[in-house]
């Protein structure tokens, strides 16, 4: 089937969660919390570093069941607890920088979490990042 340009050049997922917005925001931003749900499934997250502020960086070690650790990292662009978090997303060794936007809204006692993942958010930023990476990583698309 031919992929159509309308709508998806960005991905958006939504979930209704039985938790307060504050709780949901914490799950994304406290390293001990993030590790508990980022890990289970195909891979674990043995190491999580988070510097939660605009311009601050995060780095997550992701270990697949078989194979080497791959590192995911990026920078926080917007930090507005508990409702909004925007950060770049980059697999170490891959020049591509993408952008993730979280919107966390209370809705009738539940919390709606919206995750938007966009490719190529900022050309200039992407160019700057490209200059930094020289290593080539073999395995990383396979974890997806």
């Amino acid at each position, binding site marked *: 089937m031919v*992929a159509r*340009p309308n709508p998806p*050049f960005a991905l958006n*997922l939504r*979930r209704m969660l039985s938790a307060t917005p504050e*709780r*949901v925001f914490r799950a994304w931003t406290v390293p001990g919390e993030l590790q508990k749900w980022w890990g289970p499934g195909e891979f674990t997250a043995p190491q999580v570093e988070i510097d939660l502020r605009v311009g601050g960086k995060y780095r997550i070690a992701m270990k697949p069941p078989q194979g080497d650790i791959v590192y995911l990292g990026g920078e926080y662009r917007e930090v507005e607890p508990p409702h909004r978090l925007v950060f770049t997303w980059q697999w170490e060794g891959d020049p591509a920088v993408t952008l993730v936007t979280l919107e966390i809204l209370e809705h009738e006692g539940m919390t709606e979490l919206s995750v938007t993942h966009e490719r190529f958010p900022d050309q200039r930023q992407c160019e700057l990042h490209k200059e930094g990476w020289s290593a080539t990583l073999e395995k990383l698309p396979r974890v997806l």
Partner: protein
Amino acid sequence: MVNKMSSKLDATFSALADPTRRAILDRLGKRECTVGELAKPFPISLPAISKHLSVLERAGLISRQRMGRRQVCRLKVEPMRRASEWLERYRAFWEARLDALEAHLRNSPRE
């Protein structure tokens, strides 16, 4: 090889980031068109349309061919397919993450 594929995807998504270009691709998805036909529905000038077409061509999303006095534009499906694949991989990834988040929140309600 990762870098080459990555920059191709970048070019695709960058080309797709504009609504006029998306509309152009949508029309070409139905059938090939001349530049004149593509320009008609838009309230922007022909040179502006031409600029968009250049972006799409450089991204490998369309091809242009001169036929007499007219230029015919055609959609090239491979980059779109790759972009679509990228999105689907990430969709699967995120669905799994959010399932895990849901379970985590359910299992530790008092934190």
